[in-house]
């Protein structure tokens, strides 16, 4: 355990690794450059503490008034991401229901035997995973596109 020695105290290190995402903020939301965020020790305050996050969880824009257009952009980003998520989820559910209905209602699928197992069993057992994966990949691309659009808007400002 030699690496236990020769290292600074734990609490100091903890302070330095405090929330790294303090810097992860779009510059436009941040007209008045705030003072460098205070270092926070990453421990919880416990239940008796006042209603404050265990460590600084506030958004970069908390406490300041976000400028009007920036707030509009954020709201439209949230809306488009939510719409995208719902479309993907509904798409997955509708496709699944349709798939299952076909399996249940087409008797040929139950009659056809592949490797000794009815085809409908095999399709149900293995067929839905590719569907979920496809939806996931499409969603990730579209979500990244939404974010790129948001970034382009805020950089143009």
């Amino acid at each position, binding site marked *: 355990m030699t690496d236990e020695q020769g290292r600074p105290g734990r609490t100091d290190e903890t302070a330095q690794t405090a929330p790294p995402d303090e810097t992860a903020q779009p510059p436009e939301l941040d007209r008045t450059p705030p003072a460098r965020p205070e270092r926070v020790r990453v*421990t919880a305050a416990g239940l008796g503490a006042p209603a404050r996050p265990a460590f600084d969880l506030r958004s970069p824009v908390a406490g300041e008034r976000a400028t009007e257009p920036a707030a509009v952009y954020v709201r439209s980003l949230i809306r488009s991401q939510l719409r995208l998520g719902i479309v993907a989820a509904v798409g997955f559910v509708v496709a699944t229901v349709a798939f299952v209905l076909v399996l249940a209602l087409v008797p040929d699928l139950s009659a056809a035997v592949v490797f000794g197992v*009815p085809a409908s069993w095999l399709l149900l057992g293995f067929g839905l995973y590719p569907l979920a994966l496809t939806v996931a990949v499409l969603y990730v691309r579209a979500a990244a596109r939404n974010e790129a659009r*948001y970034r382009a808007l805020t950089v143009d400002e």
Partner: protein
Amino acid sequence: MNPWVGYLSIAAVAAASTLIGFYGLRISRTTSDFYVASRTVRPWWNASAIGGEYLSAASFLGVAGLVLLTGSQGMWFPIGYTAGYLMLLLFVAAPLRRSGAYTIPDFTQARLESTAVRRVTSTLVIVIGWFYIVPQLQGAALTVRITTGMPAWAGSVAVAVIVAAVVMAGGMRSITFVQAFQFWLKLTALAIPTVVILIVVAGGVPGLVAQAASIDPFPVEAGPAGLDVYRTVSLMVALLLGTLGLPHVLVRFYTSPDGVAARRTTVIVLALLSAFYCFPTVFGLLGRVFAPDLAEAGQADALVLMLPARLLPGPAGVLLTALVIAGAFAAFLSTTSGLVVSLAGVISQDLLGGSVRGFRIAAVLATIVPLVVALATESSGLAGSVGLVFAFTASTLCPVLLLGIWWRGLTARGAVAGMLAGGSLSALAIFGGGMLAAWAPGIRPFLEQPAAWTVPVAVAVIIVVSRTDRRGTPRGADAFLARLHTPEL
């Protein structure tokens, strides 16, 4: 079955897990390291670790058992377990990572600016974690009983002790390595036996075919045409949404470097799970043909452990059995340790001041309670009991998490009211269901699979109470939502 096969493979897995755990300890230094691996875990590592953590006794033993027992109805479990990650990807992964919180209670407290909410969420997280650990320990009991002939409690105790030791020693950094290793172990431990068995079966097993031909292994009413619509829909609601609220799964997303990495990680997890679940499904189908005698409650979960030796007499069967036992033990160890880490995180932050020492004490607390429950109760089907935990999670933490991420109108009162309503209704259905159903048999399916009505009720209560409490909207809600959804630069 030769007990030494069991002893050796269990010992090997335990030793490997502990070694990796202690190797990881050398990198684990700070409080932050202990809790979330300092958020430096790469997507592939992280995805393997999530898979390792997620694939529990229910997945490794329970899925094959259910397919054997109930036919294609059982296939919905792995589909739901996997598609839950799709929902996680669509609605939770990136925003949750950007929230910067360590645990679900941290998230709800920060989002709703209320300690009351924190108290309720912490309690729920602990209860959910405990009840999720119980089937893992019961799976261990089953495995030890069947493979070594030792008394069943020895398995539960062994898993509890190993997990508490590893978690106390290394926290999450070492857990990440252990989990990632265990995912690949579990995958191999099912994949190799499946492939070998398929090859053998394709070559023809003379003695077994006669037995198999006596009854139809794939009757139409157990197939997709015999779908029980309400139960399947309700199960899917539970599994798809329950995944969102699982404490040990969520904490993993905090270890991604940023929101985009969190998304990529989730897609990899989906792919890994899809690959994994093919094997227990095949095992279940093989079981219907070659081991129909195991198809009774309490026995079916042992299918994965018994099938290789039945179809391959001689040393090949012994080797494959050893591999399967190792995989099963990896499943109990990894899910239990993931749950213990997140429970210990919550318990130590809320009760013990968040120090490293507090975390260690909390790890013991997180293990002992479910151990007592597991020793006192009998398993009634592993996948089924895990499914009920999903239903409870889907009715409590999931609505608050979803609305907290996407709806600025959520208030602390709404969240507490919804969690209490969803929690008490689903708990009533799960624990009191037997009695209520005896009194009114018509409602049995609604009690045995409650998610389809408890989740909407919880969501409705949250929305109605939040609406009547407009002044309760946290002042920082807009800013917090902006932070959740704006991409990192």
